[in-house]
């Protein structure tokens, strides 16, 4: 009876220690996240990269697919949100024009973006 008690205590301690190690101290890091699981600033960078890549390759379907990896439904929402917030923050044309142009190409165009669309025209 006493041995069973010691064994149970040992198992409990072992499991507790394993949970501490496996989830807190040495958690396994698997490279399997999606862009939606990126930290917020990296998500914004991801959106900016999509717009910059679209400037070069002009592949709208691919840009759309990339945005959908962030948010499958209403995939233009994060793009519009970031663009408008950065417009408010007064970011540079070099950042905002590609974003506005991609947003426009995806069929969304809001009043704050208009000046950037005009400035982006060749």
């Amino acid at each position: 009876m006493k041995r069973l008690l010691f064994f149970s205590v040992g198992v409990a301690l072992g499991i507790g220690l394993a949970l501490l190690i496996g989830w807190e101290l040495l958690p396994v890091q698997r490279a399997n996240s999606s862009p939606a699981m990126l930290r917020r600033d990296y998500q914004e960078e991801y959106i900016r990269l999509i717009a910059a890549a679209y400037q070069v390759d002009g592949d709208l379907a691919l840009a759309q697919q990339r945005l959908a990896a962030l948010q499958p439904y209403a995939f233009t929402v994060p793009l519009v949100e970031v663009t408008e917030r950065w417009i408010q923050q007064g970011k540079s044309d070099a950042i905002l024009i590609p974003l506005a142009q991609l947003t426009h190409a995806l069929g969304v165009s809001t009043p704050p973006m208009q000046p950037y669309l005009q400035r982006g025209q060749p």
Partner: protein
Amino acid sequence: MKSWGVLIIGLVLGLAAGLVYTWGISPPEYYDTYPPLLDKTYRSDWIKMTALAYSAEGNWNRTQLRLQDLPEAEIRPIVAETLEQAVTAGRPIAILQRLAELGAFYGVDTPAVHIYTGEVAVVPTPAAPSAPSPTPLTVAPTATPNPPTAIPSPRPTLTAISPISTPQPLTAFYIVSQTFTCEAQPHITVSLLLSHTITVRRREQVETLPLPGREIWLLWEDGADRAITGFKPEIGLGFADFAVEPGHVYRLYIDIPQGVPISTIQVEPCTVEEREGWVSRLLLLMTQEP
């Protein structure tokens, strides 16, 4: 067995079972992650977009931050592939140069990188076998330097971006062969080759290599055209092609359009036996490594 022995056995079993669960069955799900923890497909896409963004924006610091902690072995093939795709798609030269610059930094060793960074795989020094010797010249760079990028930052030692801006040493070329064809739209194709001697098992062997990144000039009475060898790697690294018109006398130069031309060419009609058209020619030009 004593009680403490039973306790340790239980502890070990519990620890093993717990680690199997926490590391294998139910690892923690991460939110607020960063690019190196993206799934391989997304990670590759991140690298590709970063390369394209650098080609468009030219922001070196930001590019380095975007690629931070990503393994170079993973970056290298993606940048190489992106450059190849850009070359195939006929993207502007500035974009190709930046992609090549990025590739060179990460150790990409492809012909496209050599061409668009302005590196030439083999740079021979002047040698004059049986060629018309060019008159002594003061070599001046033929292109304007690139404007500085937006954000100056410490960079690795890279060669000049533009293949055009790299002054090449004067080299004596001689015509090895000419091939004539009859075509409706005549052209002159030039293939530059370097002959050099290598020693294999104490035996000397002559090897010929294509010469990319060299300027070929075609001058006529009231005009000039220029091409760089190797801009179509799928054809060959030493090739350059010109469309020509009948009625002109063309003078062919390598590197600098001055002095004695390598050849003087007139576009002639095909002979009677052949079909109607104009004579196009492929010139193989050779130089030797000293």
